[in-house]
């Protein structure tokens, strides 16, 4: 028995911040102080509060050290672990309460969260199957195989109201039912897991795989039993090396324990899982494209019907669910459908994980009950906007979603409400933007993404998105007319109606939603030739504030086109006709005398 447990976040965010070196330093310091038999060091998955990483949590006290550096480790070990004195200067300030340490669950970031999919993330060592089993892991699979019929499993999932967390929101139980019944005597069926998290800015699936990989394996085996499949595939982004490594370890351990493979729980049920790595194609998040990619082809989508439930991977009946969807399944089996459906709104049950990013204080991963308002997520859990700036929009659904303006901050988050205001749930990226972000530029950013990622198979998407991008570029350069907005809008609807797959059908959403809520910004670019947020370079002009300029000539020396002239020790001036708006002068000036607007 150890008297202290030290948990270090080993998620991608904290690892990027140096947590691997922190673990090494902890081991070294603990050895130096002869504490090896008293203190246990555990590398866990993501805690969620990435903004304050790297994170070190010490039990039994529950002390939450944030933004820890390698240099701090000697102090933490000698003071806290050896002498029992908490190093208050390193403790996350929200948990400091005069003399006492508050529980993490009382902080603004955690107190309104409800963790089901993330329940083991930041709690167990994801590379040790015993820790997963210790928290009730593989009990659901045991229950299903020994006491439930496949039909009962499907009914439980149906009753729970669980909908696809990858963004579409299709009822999971219905998907399973179709795959079980459409081709009852298929010689082979497949269970696939979509871990090709393509929305740039969403990382919940990665965190689940890094923090609790067995939960996904167990749920896939349950799905296999329910639909009558013996083989599963996880299609995971190659950009997620830590998730891949932990999945490989988890699959190996599950096989060793007889929880994957043949005759699981001695019930005669066989199920195994293989990993397939993506190679960087956003369209492979679309179900038919993903399956085509696993088959070893260009990941192009194909028309439906036939739906995968009838003819999917290798032409066999197949189900494909997202990582977060699977992460809910075992808990539903163990706690019952009613427990799950008691949470959330009428049509959206349970919780949803969001990746909070952009202009927000508490960047990180949050899991909230459906129906929580956007305001609660941004202002309370997220801690608001940094530097006292004004909230402008929240973007959900990534390149397929839309921007939500301040007037809709009190919306209760669920699938249908978000669609009603022109955005969508998507996989759960939630990017906050402030007054310094230009909405036309953001729309252009997403279009550039879809132009780049369009697979090229169907014309509306391949050519239509490019034409949209060109119009947006014209607007941001101040070369567009008001008719271009009408053209753009028409194009949006054509592309939505005529594209083959979800990528094209949703690609216009960022444009449509910004046109709906921020049309004044488009108009300002076109009519006034101004970018109100000061982002679009072609519409900016640089000038020197004479009162602030010391006449040091630094800007003139760095200007590549000789647009800045003046006399030493007197205010300089910029010739705007010559200026190429490279911004070199702004970053050189030590006195903040050069402004762009």
């Amino acid at each position: 028995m150890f008297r202290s447990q030290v948990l270090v976040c080993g998620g991608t965010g904290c690892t990027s911040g140096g947590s691997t070196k922190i673990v090494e330093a902890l081991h070294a310091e603990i050895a130096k102080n002869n504490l090896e038999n008293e203190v246990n060091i555990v590398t866990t998955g993501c805690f969620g509060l990435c903004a304050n990483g790297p994170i070190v949590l010490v039990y039994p006290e529950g002390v939450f050290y944030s933004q820890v550096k390698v240099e701090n480790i000697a102090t933490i070990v000698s003071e806290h672990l050896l002498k029992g004195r908490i190093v208050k200067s390193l403790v996350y300030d929200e948990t400091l309460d005069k003399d006492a340490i508050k529980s993490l669950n009382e902080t603004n970031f955690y107190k309104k969260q409800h963790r089901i999919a993330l329940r083991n993330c930041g709690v167990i060592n994801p590379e040790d199957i015993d820790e997963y089993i210790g928290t009730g892991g593989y009990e659901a699979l045991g229950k299903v195989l020994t006491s439930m019929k496949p039909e009962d499993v499907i009914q439980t999932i149906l009753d729970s109201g669980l909908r696809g967390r990858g963004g579409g929101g299709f009822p999971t139980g219905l998907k399973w039912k179709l795959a079980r019944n459409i081709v009852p005597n298929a010689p082979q069926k497949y269970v696939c897991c979509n871990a090709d998290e393509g929305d740039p800015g969403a990382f919940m699936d990665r965190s689940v795989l890094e923090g609790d990989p067995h939960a996904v394996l167990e749920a896939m085996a349950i799905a296999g039993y329910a639909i009558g499949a013996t083989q599963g595939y996880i299609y995971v982004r190659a950009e997620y090396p830590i998730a891949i490594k932990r999945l490989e370890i988890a699959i190996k351990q599950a096989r060793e324990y007889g929880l994957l493979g043949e005759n699981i729980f001695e019930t005669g049920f066989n199920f195994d899982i293989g990993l397939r790595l993506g190679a960087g194609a956003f369209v492979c998040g679309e179900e038919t494209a993903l399956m085509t990619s696993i088959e070893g082809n260009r990941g192009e989508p194909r028309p439906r019907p036939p739906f995968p439930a009838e003819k999917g991977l290798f032409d066999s009946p197949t189900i494909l669910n997202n990582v977060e969807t699977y992460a809910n399944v075992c808990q539903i089996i163990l706690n019952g459908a009613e427990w799950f459906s008691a949470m959330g709104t009428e049509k959206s049950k349970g919780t949803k994980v969001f990746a909070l990013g952009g202009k927000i204080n508490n960047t990180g991963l949050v899991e909230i009950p459906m129906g929580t308002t956007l305001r609660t997520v941004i202002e309370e859990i997220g801690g608001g906007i940094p530097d006292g700036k004004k909230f402008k929009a929240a973007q959900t659904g990534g390149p397929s979603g839309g921007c939500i303006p301040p007037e809709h901050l009190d919306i209760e988050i669920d699938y249908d409400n978000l669609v009603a205001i022109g955005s969508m749930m998507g996989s759960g990226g939630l990017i906050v933007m402030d007054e310094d972000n230009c909405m036309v530029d953001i729309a252009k950013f997403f279009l550039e993404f879809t132009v780049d990622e369009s697979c090229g198979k169907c014309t509306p998407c391949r050519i239509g998105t490019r034409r949209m991008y060109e119009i947006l570029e014209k607007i941001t350069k101040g070369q567009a007319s008001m008719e271009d907005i009408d053209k753009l809008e028409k194009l949006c609807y054509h592309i939505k109606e005529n594209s083959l797959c979800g990528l094209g059908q949703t690609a216009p959403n960022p444009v449509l939603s910004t046109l709906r809520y921020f049309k004044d910004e488009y108009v300002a670019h076109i009519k006034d030739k101004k970018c109100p947020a000061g982002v679009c370079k072609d519409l900016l002009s640089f000038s020197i504030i004479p009162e602030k300029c010391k006449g040091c000539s630094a800007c003139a020396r760095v200007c590549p086109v000789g647009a800045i002239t003046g006399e030493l020790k007197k205010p300089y001036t910029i010739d705007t006709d010559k200026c190429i708006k490279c911004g070199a002068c702004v970053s050189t000036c030590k006195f903040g005398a050069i402004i762009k607007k």
Partner: protein
Amino acid sequence: MAVAFTGTPEQEKQLLAVIGEMKETKGALMPILQKAQEIYGYLPIEVQKLIADKTDTPIEKIYGVVTFYSQFSLYPKGKFQVSICLGTACYVKGAGDIYDELKKQLKIDGGGCTEDGKYSLDACRCIGACGLAPVMMVNDDVYGRLTTKEIKGILDKYS
């Protein structure tokens, strides 16, 4: 950008072993290409031809797959692979300016490689360190909360 192929017999032996191992696997082409890129660092036409021969797959299919996915490269990468995250979270925090600064410093465009083969520059879509936005990577090192002023100093560390 023609670069002479410099594959060694050892590399070929490794690749043949991978192909032998995977031949019976369903949908083996992607994993074979991924291993091949690990072995050679990129997928020149010579390597694609070898895979086509040994797996009885038409070369046009192999080329089609290689050019479809952004992770497969037809050209060698630099000794130091610089990639800037252009995910949404990084973008709204100014990753576009960092990208411009990198292009300016390295005098190459995205997807390019400096003439001395030292640096290559790519934009990538979210490495998942959104808490540190804006973020860039040089090989396996991650740099977060970047400003344009820091770029030169970071690049100078690699030479």
